[in-house]
């Protein structure tokens, strides 16, 4: 059993060994080099999904800026940079900011080549630790995947099964149901209903087979909330100020909302713009929120983000993806290596493959992630306080020893030791006792392993430096 540091080191060593073995095979060597480079870089999250599912809008919402290029074929990579720059097929191109997003104008001499890929560098806090890839199909070299889809039917499940990979449970996939605002005809409670439905879907084994988590988000509302302008707020406030009876008939349909002679306080053009930005559901929600007390742009934006499901998604990304950067990166690197070893046969490949399988089987981190997701979705149930304890010990609230044990930052070493010992004892008893169901006992064993790792780490910290 190994922890994340060792997992990272062993992955690095294994990749180096493979690079040595394949040094005479140029494509394999190049792939291994880029994989090794990727191990040190930021976490790459692919935002994938069928066309028109709201990928670009979700990227905008996550970054908090209208960055998605307008009318550009192929995939777009967003990464951190000191100043806004853009590349198209490795050639730098000018970048123009418009009201609806960036305009990249690759000319004919740039469009040569097969893989169409634009790279946008943008100074952003979000992008500092992660790199977003907007692509139709889940990119093979991504560390994690956000699969954006209006619905999760059989065709989507098939795509996800293909992207799952054979090495480990799908700890790197999160499904985003992107038509949350239109649930049940776009009523005010559409988003709530959608989130309830998502919670129910999460528990289905069919869904759990292909993803770590599933959440319902309205990318449109989320993006609009992240970039809410003062004039927009003014327009919404003006509409909200109208008597309910007067406004309501005009909120029935998009046609009525944009009709020339309706809703006099805001002129038709601005209403059309509002509709494009928020959607009818978004407008209804925003009006309700303003009426119920969110009377500043900041408060409205905050509430809208909450309702749109963006906050929940961000939290999920933070705890499931960003906090688990090393293990996810190791996973993607190992998957790449696994595929390479299986396609490029080599006398030494068998040995490497054996080491790889051993490493994956040893990686406790992957099991932790899996159990966390099972606990969150309710696929595995533990008694209430045990479940909270288990979530924390597994690193659901942070992966440092203190966070895992739930210690206050100023706790002494002795207290930490005691807490670690106590947790170990308690979970040992649970894992070996007869009070739990078999599934829960297996979960308890995994938590116990986490406790053992915590004790090991404390040992290492306390050991005198030779």
């Amino acid at each position: 059993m190994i922890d994340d540091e060792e997992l990272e080191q062993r992955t690095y060593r294994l990749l180096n060994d493979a690079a040595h073995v394949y040094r005479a095979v140029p494509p394999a060597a190049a792939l291994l080099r880029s994989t090794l480079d990727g191990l040190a870089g930021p976490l790459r999250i692919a935002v994938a999904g069928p066309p028109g599912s709201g990928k670009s809008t979700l990227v905008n919402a996550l970054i908090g800026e209208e960055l998605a290029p307008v009318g550009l074929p192929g995939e777009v990579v967003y990464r951190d940079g000191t100043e806004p720059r853009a590349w198209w097929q490795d050639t730098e191109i000018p970048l123009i900011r418009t009201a609806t997003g960036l305009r990249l104008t690759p000319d004919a001499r740039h469009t040569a080549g097969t893989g169409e890929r634009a790279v946008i560098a943008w100074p952003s806090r979000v992008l500092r630790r992660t790199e977003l890839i907007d692509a139709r199909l889940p990119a093979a070299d991504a560390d994690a995947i956000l699969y954006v889809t209006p619905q999760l039917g059989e065709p989507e499940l098939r795509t996800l099964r293909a992207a799952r990979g054979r090495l480990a449970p799908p700890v790197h996939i999160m499904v985003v149901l992107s038509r949350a605002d239109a649930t049940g005809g776009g009523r005010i409670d559409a988003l709530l209903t959608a989130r309830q439905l998502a919670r129910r879907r999460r528990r289905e084994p069919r869904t759990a087979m292909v993803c770590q988590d599933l959440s319902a988000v309205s990318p449109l509302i989320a993006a609009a909330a992240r970039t809410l302008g003062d004039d927009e707020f003014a327009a919404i406030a003006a509409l909200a100020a109208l008597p309910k009876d007067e406004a309501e008939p005009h909120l029935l349909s998009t046609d009525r909302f944009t009709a020339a002679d309706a809703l006099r306080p805001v002129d038709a053009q601005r209403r059309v713009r509002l509709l494009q930005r928020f959607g009818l559901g978004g407008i209804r929600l925003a009006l309700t929120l303003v009426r119920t007390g969110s009377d500043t742009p900041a408060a409205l934006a905050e509430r809208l983000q909450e309702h749109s499901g963006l906050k929940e998604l961000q939290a999920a990304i933070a705890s499931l993806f960003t906090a688990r950067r090393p293990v996810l990166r190791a996973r993607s690197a190992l998957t790449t290596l696994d595929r390479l070893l299986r396609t490029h046969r080599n006398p030494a490949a068998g040995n490497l493959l054996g080491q790889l399988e051993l490493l994956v089987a040893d990686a406790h981190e992957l099991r932790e992630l899996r159990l966390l997701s099972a606990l969150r979705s309710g696929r595995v149930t533990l008694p209430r306080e045990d479940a909270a304890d288990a979530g924390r010990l597994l690193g659901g609230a942070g992966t440092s020893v203190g966070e895992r044990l739930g210690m206050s930052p100023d706790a002494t070493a002795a207290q930490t030791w005691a807490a670690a010992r106590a947790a170990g004892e308690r979970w040992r008893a649970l894992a070996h006792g007869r009070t739990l169901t078999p599934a829960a006992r297996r979960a308890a064993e995994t938590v116990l392993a986490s406790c053992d790792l915590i004790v090991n780490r404390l040992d290492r910290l306390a050991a005198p430096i030779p």
Partner: protein
Amino acid sequence: MTTWETGPTAYAGPVSLAPQPRAVGALLWLDVLDSTIRACGEHGRSELAEWLTRRRAQLLRPELRVLVAGAAQQGKSQLINALINAEVCAGAGVPTVVRHAASPTAQLVRRGSPDADWTDEVGLQDRVPLGLDTLGASIAESTARLPAGAPVHAEVAVPRSLLAGGLVLIDTPPLAGLPGVAERAGADVVLYACDADRGLGDPDLAVLRDLARFQPGLLVVFTKTDYAADWRRTLADGRARLARAGVPAATTAVSSVLRLHALKTGDTALNGESGFPDLIVHLQRTIAAKPDRLARDTVARLAQVVLAELAVPLRDDLAAQRDAGVPDAVARLHATQRRLDDLRKCAVRWQNSLSDEIGDLMSDVEHDLRERTKAVLAQAEEFFAEADPAKAWDEFEPWLRQSLQELAETSTTWLAERTEWMAHRVAGCFPPEAGEVLPPPALASAVDDGVDEQVPGLDAPPVARFSPGQKLFIGLRGSYGGVVMFGLVTSLAGMSLINPISIGGGAIFGGKTIRDESKSLLKKRQAEAKAMVARHIDDVFVRLNKEARDSVRRVQRALRDHFTAVTEDLQEIVMDSLRNAKVAADQDVAAREQHSRRIQEELAALARLHSEALALTGVRA
């Protein structure tokens, strides 16, 4: 849910079940359909005929079954609910058939098999009554009790004037294999629901293209126009895409939410905005058009599909015939003619071969016999160079007979082998397809007949006997000289002429003379014996040679007769098959011509039917 009885029903135009006056020839489609069904039967496509018969019954039903189809989450159930203002489609993953009835009922119907028609009658035990007010829950409950995957659908009947006109609405769960479901559900018209926010994608177009092959009156309904930001563009875009894909489908856009809201508040303007009045008018027109226009379109489409299918094997057949080249029977005729030629050539060949072989054999036999007899003679001569015939004859005679006997036998065996080999050789001249032509072994062994008799013995040569009297006489004659010679010499010494010495000398001389005489006699006897043996052997040779020649001639005659008979038989057979092949080839050519003529006639008939079917669509009542 609102109560079942109340709830305004928008647009209940006057619809009568009474047959409307039809133009003359309006039922022409029935004739075309029947002709097509007959054509299916004639071409042995009973499954197509059965299918068309089902469709025929369906077309003759007064009701109009409208299938609402589409991908998941496209507002199909809401569309039906809004259309009749009742929450009848619970969207529980079970297809729902909604029809008119004076009082509301709901049942879950379990079909016999997944392939069974939905309109088939089912017994009471396969009908589960459902609670009307909690439709979704009771459907879920009832289906849970059935085995998983059992083919079921819900049948809901509500009193609605729109439905009273014979309209039956069918809500389907999202699924692939749509034309099949439309088929089994007995759908006359298909409404394809599509979210106006999403627009028609390539998968939708593929499904629509499939549907359009069988279904006229295809209508694409863009739903949720209240929520879509720019549904007019989606609609125009969808129309353009349909036109590009060549799918003859009408399009309309509706909003179920607006319609339900309008019905609740009695807002006519909002109802107008929902787009439903247009849809209802369209449906009612379709009901009215069912016995004529819709039926004609459907028949035209079905007939086209079926006739095209019927024509495929015929065309293939025709093409195959054209490509097949020389037919079998003609090829067989040619082959037979070739065989006859071969046989003729072979007759000449084997005759030559036989005569050559016989000539060779004769000279070989003679040469062989001669060699063998020479060897025996040489041995005999060698024997008599030493042995005395008078003494050794008894020993010699059996040996000679034995060796000559052996010689005759060897020669016979050898001759038999040669004959057999020759028969093989000649048989080899026949073509392999002639089969086994070797003569029976009895023929080849005809050689043996002549050599049964023994080689005759040889009497001892007359021996010049050397009797004791002759010996005495010759001894006395020889000793005379010796006695005189020695007597004279001893007389000089004073002895008498006859003294012991002279007697001794005489005795020596006499002995010598006797020995010489007997030696010369021996020589004489040996020469005589040799001559006799040589003569004898020569006799034997002549006789054996004669016998061998006779045998060879006999064999030659036998083989010639045999092979002539074989050749004649073969020729007879080949001539026979040639005659047959000729007849078959003539018949075949005639049959093929007739067959292709028939296919062409059938194709022409199908084409006629096809153009009649096409004409159905052109005729406006």
